[in-house]
């Protein structure tokens, strides 16, 4: 089975597009047809962003509700916001580190407890892999590698070779940051392996 529908969500500026590209490019390099869709334009200014990435897909880029194989949340509230895309036997890989929206910072809304959101996610999927990607990214050597940490964590579930994913990471990140990004990818992958076991 190489068909795999992935929803990647986050906050504008978190690097959701790079995360999608790592998966999409690796799949194409493995010879799979891919259809993906990205959020550009006004929504990027700190708003909710959503990318669809469909591996081995010959149709359109939009994943039907309830049929995604995985949701990757770069931010916990965004992960939960997208949960309706996920199939019941799907996987959720989610960063536990919140980014408060302006509605919360201004006091107009309340940001839910992260544990409550994880509990909700757990009831809606087969595997839940929560991880503090920002902390792991710092361990890897740079806080901006959190998106790559999460792709590493997701890699255990993707129908793709680790080698081709690592090759995509190397090709897509700035040349000077290849080592730190590969480390981020591997740390994410290990953390999620432990969580599954």
């Amino acid at each position, binding site marked *: 089975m190489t068909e795999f529908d992935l929803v990647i969500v986050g*906050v*504008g500026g978190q690097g959701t597009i790079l995360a*999608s*590209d790592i998966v*999409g*490019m690796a*799949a*194409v*390099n*493995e*010879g*799979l*047809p*891919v*259809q*993906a*869709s*990205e*959020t*550009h*334009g*006004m*929504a*990027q*200014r*700190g*708003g*909710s962003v959503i990318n669809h990435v469909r591996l081995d897909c010959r*149709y*359109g*880029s*939009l994943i*039907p*509700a*309830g049929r995604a194989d995985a949701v990757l949340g770069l931010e916990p*509230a*965004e992960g*939960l*916001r997208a*949960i*309706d895309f996920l199939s019941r036997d799907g996987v959720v890989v989610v960063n536990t580190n919140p980014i*408060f*929206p*302006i*509605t*919360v*910072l*201004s*006091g107009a*809304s*309340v*940001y*839910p*407890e992260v544990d*409550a*959101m994880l509990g*909700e996610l757990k009831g*809606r999927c087969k595997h839940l892999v929560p991880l503090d990607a920002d902390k792991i990214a710092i361990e890897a050597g740079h806080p901006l590698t959190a998106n790559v940490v999460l792709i590493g964590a997701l890699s255990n579930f993707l129908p793709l070779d680790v080698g081709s994913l690592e090759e995509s990471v190397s090709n897509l990140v700035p040349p000077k940051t290849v080592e730190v990004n590969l480390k981020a990818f591997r740390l994410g992958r290990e953390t999620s392996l432990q969580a599954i076991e």
Partner: protein
Amino acid sequence: MPKSNIRYQFGNHAIAQALYDSGVDLVSGYPGTPSSEIIEALARLKPDCHVEWSVNEKVALEVAIGASWSGGRSAATMKHVGLNVASDPFMTLAYAGVKGGLVIISADDPGCHSSQNEQDNRRYAQFARIPCLDPATPQEACDMVSYAFNFSEKYEMPVILRPTTRVCHGKSDITIPETEKPGKKIGFEKRPQQWVMLPAHARVRHKVLMEKQDIMAEALGSSKWNQLDIIKGAELGIIASGVASVYTREAIERLGIKASFLKISTYPVPFNLIEQLLDSVGQLPDQVGQVLVIEELEPVVEEAVISISGTRNVDVHGKDMVPRNGELNVSIVEAAISKVAGLDHIPHVPEGLSVELPNRPPVMCPGCPHRATYYAMKKAFGNSAVFPGDIGCYTLGVQMGTMDTCLCMGASITTASGIYHAGETEPICCSIGDSTFLHTGIPGLLNAVYNGADITVTILDNRTTAMTGHQPNPGTGLNVLGDATFMASLEDISKSCGVEFVGATDPFNVKKTIEVFKQAREHKGTAVVISRQECIITARRRGIRLTPFTVDPDECQGCKACIRFGCPASSFIESTEEGQKGKAVIGELCVGCGVCAQVCPFDAIKEVSK
């Protein structure tokens, strides 16, 4: 392993590559989501053709027309609403026709992802009687480019290529087609009967335009962009257009139904194929054949199918089953097909959440100069003033109460004028970005002065076209390739429009900016305030780093003035002690603009000591 010419590519980048490979001589456009990346990518290819960001879409199309009339291949790119701006040359271009191939790339935005409306520009194609190609996938958009040029040259007609957001901003494994560049000679050839639209010539050319319709329709109808699969004995025929066709194919497969299927991607529609499909379902004994048309937005295909169906024994469904607004997706299409086919279909019902998620609207960035400008504007003008607005990142000023209107590019100054002339007595202060001012704001400013509108016009000059991805404009002194060129002065333009009060200010200097706004408000007549500070995103990309700020908890009185300012870097922590006020804090998002320190009435916000 993939073939070497397959690459994982962005739709707009593939379109740019295809333009380049087709030997295009000139590409012009104005930035607009979802079209902007086409010209950006083309500029990065360092082509030997002329590429430009034009000041607006009308200008862009006319520049492209000039190139075509000189025998060159040209393209003009824009978002769907850009074609409204370019509609004047567009409508008459249909009469005049072209010499070198001319492709108008209209990137439509069903669902208003980043637009003020979701108009369907297939209607423009019908209106002007200009052929239109409506790609289903990024690959198809890329493949259509060279076809469009050849078609345009053969029939001496411009062609619209209409990718939608999902095509422009889609990524997929794309094979860039091998294209033969045409051998052509550039040189303007005088053809007054064709290029000079005097009434006497226009009457003749209108007839020529009509005469071309049938032959163009026939050629488009037999092109590979339309595909008909007749299933023998099927009582249901499904017709789907453009991007809706891929959702429909997926829905048909998932539902496992037997239906004949016609995919349409050309306009005028392929009459012949529609007739074949209608015949296949409409000639079954004792039953009425069912036809369902699935297309995003307007019922363009549906109307054609109804008119072609004539006396055939078929029911044609379309907008009675499929919404006329918003984007489509597989779930919507499955529901429509199930209804027409009489299937028991259990739609996916979204499950509620036990936790309530806060909204996350887009916001102005930490350190965005627009926020500072709006703060000062509101201080000087008060809450009851009228704040007409325009299109750009600064439209997010709606969150600060300084954006009372937003209609289309350039409409701030003009609607402000109308509000004044109608007799509104509150002060009126409108805002418009630098690029938008140069796009269509200048005629409005001239008109305001000429007709005596007592308004303040704020030009938010952040030295870029920010919202669409930071394209240069004439005010930046750089062209599309990043090369230095003439830098337009907003002050000089304003003065030459006859504005007597032109005040420039740096919005990061709050006190001065409030003062300039107050002077503008007191000025009798049209006043201009140029609030100039570079977009924080481009400034940081250039390596500019300012010292961040922090809140001194001993000085903070918990008044929340900085929180009301609305910067995402600031937040408030309520006190856990009874009767104690909480404190503001500044997080790591702070870029050091220092505006909140000026907003704080207690001097509690200070630069982080090094």
